[in-house]
């Protein structure tokens, strides 16, 4: 109901959903002023086999809207309403998923999130969803992995179309805290560079990294808080609790590029983010003070196999 009411805030700009074929994997994204990131983002997921992008543009003024209108596999909605009041975009996307996602595998990602899954270098996303279906699985988890450059984030400006992980090549391999949320069964994962660099004194405020972005959607489903939690709660049971490993992936997070400085300023000004934008306050301060997120025990990214060996994701028994 809430999503339905909030859907009134959405205005369709280009609707190409008639082109969606049965079996297509659909990507859902909310964004604002991300023009520079879009070419690489769209190409990355096209190459993985996403069939159609359904995007909500929250009042961009940098040409994002016009750029997306020109993409043949994008359907675009625009809204000037409050990101915060829409539960950070969840309501909008829940509605679009309800409307267009049922029966499809849906992938909810931000423009700075890049899905890495087992064998992603040799098997398209369809291979994964086919296999998940054969296993009777409806959801697939991919933890958010914050990537960062060595040296100040402003040292290497990001150029449109570039692979952001040429710059933000580093990550924290093994400093994650996991707790079980008894109510919704999901795991609460925190840690990584954001906890280490910005929340050394306030670990409970470190952002949640657990995500379940890939779901075989049904009209009965809904995201509760970003893509961290789902209803019904069985969809959150993406882990094995008897010692075994379920298959899982990683969402590589290209947040820490030079673009973040301007973004942090703007977001602070707008005050549209979670918990009074304290994250952005911390970045604004932290990135100015120390500049470098890199430490001598940072790990340089190689490929999915490395993430698998490190235990950040798992093949499970997908051989």
């Amino acid at each position, binding site marked *: 109901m809430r999503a339905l009411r909030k859907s009134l805030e959405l205005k369709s700009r280009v609707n190409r959903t008639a082109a969606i074929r049965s079996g297509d994997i659909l990507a859902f994204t909310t964004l604002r002023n991300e023009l520079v990131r879009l070419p690489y983002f769209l190409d990355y997921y096209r190459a993985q086999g996403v069939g159609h992008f359904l995007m909500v543009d929250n009042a961009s003024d940098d040409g994002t809207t016009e750029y997306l209108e020109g993409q043949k596999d994008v359907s675009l909605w625009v809204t000037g309403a409050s990101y915060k009041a829409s539960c950070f975009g969840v309501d909008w996307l829940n509605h679009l998923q309800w409307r267009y996602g049922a029966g499809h595998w849906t992938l909810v990602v931000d423009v700075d999130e890049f899905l890495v899954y087992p064998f992603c270098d040799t098997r398209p996303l369809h291979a994964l969803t*086919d296999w998940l279906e054969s296993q009777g699985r409806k959801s697939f988890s991919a933890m958010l992995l914050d990537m960062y450059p060595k040296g100040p984030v402003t040292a290497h400006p990001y150029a449109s179309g570039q692979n952001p992980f040429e710059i933000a090549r580093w990550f924290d391999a093994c*400093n994650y805290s996991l707790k079980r949320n008894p109510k919704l069964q999901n795991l609460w994962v925190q840690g990584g560079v954001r906890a280490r660099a910005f929340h050394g004194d306030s670990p409970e405020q470190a952002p949640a990294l657990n995500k379940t972005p890939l779901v075989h959607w049904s009209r009965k489903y809904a995201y509760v808080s970003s893509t961290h939690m789902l209803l019904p709660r069985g969809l959150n049971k993406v882990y094995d609790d008897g010692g075994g490993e379920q298959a899982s992936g990683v969402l590589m997070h290209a947040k820490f590029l030079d673009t973040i400085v301007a973004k942090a300023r703007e977001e602070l000004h707008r005050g549209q983010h979670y918990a009074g934008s304290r994250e952005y306050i911390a970045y604004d301060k932290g990135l100015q003070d120390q500049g470098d997120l890199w430490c001598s025990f940072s790990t340089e990214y190689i490929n999915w196999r490395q993430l698998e060996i490190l235990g950040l994701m798992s093949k499970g028994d997908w051989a």
Partner: protein
Amino acid sequence: MSTDARPETAPLGVVMLCHTALHRAAQVARFWLAANCPVVIHVDRAVGADQMEAFRKDLGTHPLLRFSTRFRCEWGTWPIVAATQAAAEQMLAEFEQVEHVLLTSGACIPLRPAAEMTDWLAQRHDVDFIESVSIGHAPWIKGGLSEERFTLHFPLSWKRQKYAFDMLVDLQRRFGIRREVPRPLQPHMGSQWWCLSRKTLQGILTHPKRARYDRYFKRTWIPDESYFQTMVRIVSDRIESRSLTLVKFDRNGRPNLFYDDHLQLLRRSDCFVARKIWPDAHRLYDFFLSDHTTREAPIDPQPAKIDRYFELAAKQRTEGRAGLYMQSRFPLENSVNSKTAAPYSVFCGFQQLFENFDFWLGSVTNCRVHGHLFAPEKAEFHGGATVYHGAISNSAALRDYNPRMFLANLIWATRGERQCFSYNSRDNMNSELNWFMATDRNAQISVISGCFILPLFRGEYKVDDVLGHIGWLQRREQEFISILQSKWTSADIRVWTLAEFLQSPQEFLSQTIRAAFPDARFSEADMPQSRPLDGFEEYLAQLRNLGLPPVLLQDYKR
């Protein structure tokens, strides 16, 4: 010789059971036809007329191609056998030159040139290749029912009528209903995919009692894995009990799919055919259906390598990697033996008793020994590092937010190097962490109780309320020790009182270190010295006069 003479029909006929990805099935059929192998295709009746039409069109007409009577084949049910029988009958009747019939599915792919297979079979013309295992000896059956597949009635579909199916099985068990297996059949099971000689196949299909046997098998469970496997035993005398088709099953009994990245693995197979191929595995289809297999140098078959590959995957799914806590592996408390990834040592009191204990331990074991990892101020990593392997921060707040994960992470991130650290009651002890370590078989915990008082005795730090402070330390140590002495522990635990330990400090220390580091090299002369305890007895007496309970260090006398 005339150039347009019809090539000779190959002695190998291929039966294909198809229901999805028909474009791939057509490709494979063309592969066999190109090698002059007759092909009889069964298409599931569930496939729609338009799809069927497109498939026929795709294949065109070929003198060696036939379509057989269509059945609706549901998993685990009789029509699969009926479809196979019909197709095989057609094959034998219409292609007289066929000496062997290979049963495949539409998702199978040939791994070698067809000619290699026909030559190989020609040398074994009367041998039947069919996995046929007596049910008493088939522990590999996945999915619960084993012998009961043959002795209960199964009139229902497991896929569509799951609940009723299970109820019926329960009822039959409860009332002891059993079917007789018709004599002289001996139930056998095995892979559905076989390659039988004309003589044997004919023998099964024209067996005088076939009607009786078919009636029996119609009501067994998964007859496609038992009908031919059982029947072959009464008509053939040259059975090689193995399948020429490579299939690897997962833990749910579903065949694992093969993808492009399995190309090299599949080339190492000693089988002729593999299933199941993911329909979009373009590289596999391109490679194995082209003449690559003839052109490229042969590779030595190493089927064990393939087995190992899938066994490892299954193991990762069921057992996982010990000591790993992550988004898709989060074992419940006590559901696993190993809570951490590798052995580690916890020392309580040693740092207070011995001169430069951490330094000495590091030098005799070649390990980077930490200080008090759970010190209230910060995690005292080796060398005072502010961040350690895995980018673990030394922030006390981050550590105390989830101490168990802090420890598990440290052990996971440093696999290969034993972690040693000090821990005592002044540290941020917490009963969850205490239990975690005490019930972890990777932990070695050695405690000299009462040593927490030594820094006070030496005046290393001052407190206003000495007795209160000592009481607090004492309570925490007692809690820890009572956990260590409970019956639920699995760590390697040693507990001494200070007085006990001082009776033979070098021996106890050496014992402890050698238990953790069998290769550590040190002699008596290398042992660290106990720090002086002159006046300690007087200090204790003083405290007792102030009101310290006599329980603490009551056995201490110099």
